[in-house]
């Protein structure tokens, strides 16, 4: 996991923005892969999962940050997990109440938000060391970044795999869907594709930065 700058000199808005792109939890840190791959077969499922994770992340970051001076170091992980599990149970019942179809489509993966390494990772690396306000901002940033990544994957897989987006057909009837994209292997390939794109961008930036500096001199 990358090192985080926890010094006070970092502006509050940075805590939010870093999760969106520079330290994007999925594309850059490669955390929380299981739900990303499992429920991204349609854009709708991906968005629902992203929002559920966002909620749990923000709430658990806030509570853990509040508790940070009361919890002894030895039992911190167990405490974090219990806090996270409580919020996940709330989300699980809320989704069941809002839309039973969605609850069936996401299945056990809502409960599995508990073991999403992203949430525990943020609790340990950020919320247990920072003030409540900054922890909430960090949770929001990371959560929105996670949501964005899930949506990227879900959209690609749904467009190619069933020729639609959010259930609305995009192509005319002659379109032959790529069945592999809906299947589990499609998840691996799509994520690999996005990571390749990010690596390429990163490479180009690191190549062009020194070149630009030389040109200035």
């Amino acid at each position: 996991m990358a090192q985080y700058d926890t010094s006070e000199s970092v502006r509050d808005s940075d805590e939010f923005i870093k999760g969106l792109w520079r330290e994007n939890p999925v594309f850059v840190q490669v955390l929380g892969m299981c739900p990303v791959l499992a429920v991204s077969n349609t854009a709708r499922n991906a968005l629902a999962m992203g929002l559920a994770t966002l909620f749990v992340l923000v709430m658990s970051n806030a509570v853990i940050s509040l508790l940070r001076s009361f919890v002894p170091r030895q039992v911190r992980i167990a405490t974090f997990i219990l806090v996270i599990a409580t919020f996940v149970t709330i989300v699980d019942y809320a989704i069941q109440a809002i839309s039973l179809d969605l609850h069936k489509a996401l299945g056990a993966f809502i409960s599995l938000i508990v073991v999403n390494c992203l949430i525990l990772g943020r609790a340990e690396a950020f919320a247990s060391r920072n003030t409540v306000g900054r922890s909430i901002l960090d949770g929001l940033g990371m959560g929105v970044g996670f949501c964005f990544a899930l949506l990227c994957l879900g959209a690609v897989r749904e467009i190619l795999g069933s020729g639609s987006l959010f259930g609305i057909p995009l192509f005319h009837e002659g379109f032959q869907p790529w069945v592999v994209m809906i299947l589990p292997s499609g998840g691996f390939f799509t994520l690999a594709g996005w990571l390749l794109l990010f690596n390429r961008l990163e490479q180009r930036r690191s190549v062009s930065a020194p070149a630009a500096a030389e040109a200035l001199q």
Partner: protein
Amino acid sequence: MTGDPLWSIFVNACLINNFVLAYFLGICPFLGVSGKLETATRMGGAVMFVMLVSSVCAYGINALLVAIDAPYLRLISFIAVIASTVQLVEMFIKKMSPALFRALGIFLPLITTNCAILGLALFQTNKGYDFPQCIAYSLGAGAGFTLALVLMAGLREKLELTTIPDVVKGTALSLILAGILSIAFMGFAGLGG
């Protein structure tokens, strides 16, 4: 689902609906510990044991929670049991084989956040398996996890010796490999129900 014979549950969990390649559970250790064949095998063994113990415990807890009519406590009690089982395994390995303990390193405590284990506990409850079926299911899932991990580790050891473009190195390459493995495992789909 309750009438399934034990062998079919085992084969189903191990090959057809492989936890890593079909359900995407336990991807983090799958990508993290699959660098070396030997570590992968031992990690698989540890996960298998934790799966078996937590599956038995989850069966008991579920029966108890149904009896006292408190299903909303299920998730919290499952995760608490898994965390303590992992702690137990950690102490056991530390005592019995310090070398193995060092080889597994940080990934041993991280078994707690391995979604394959919590997923197993949740799936067996959702499917309403009885006690022998739970054991067959957990053994199958453990064997499937180990199989996927070992296959991946073997492939990655081979790839160490080849030349690959810089862009693909790292996680992207592992994911492409996993995708191909996943397609290969789909070939088992005709084996059972």
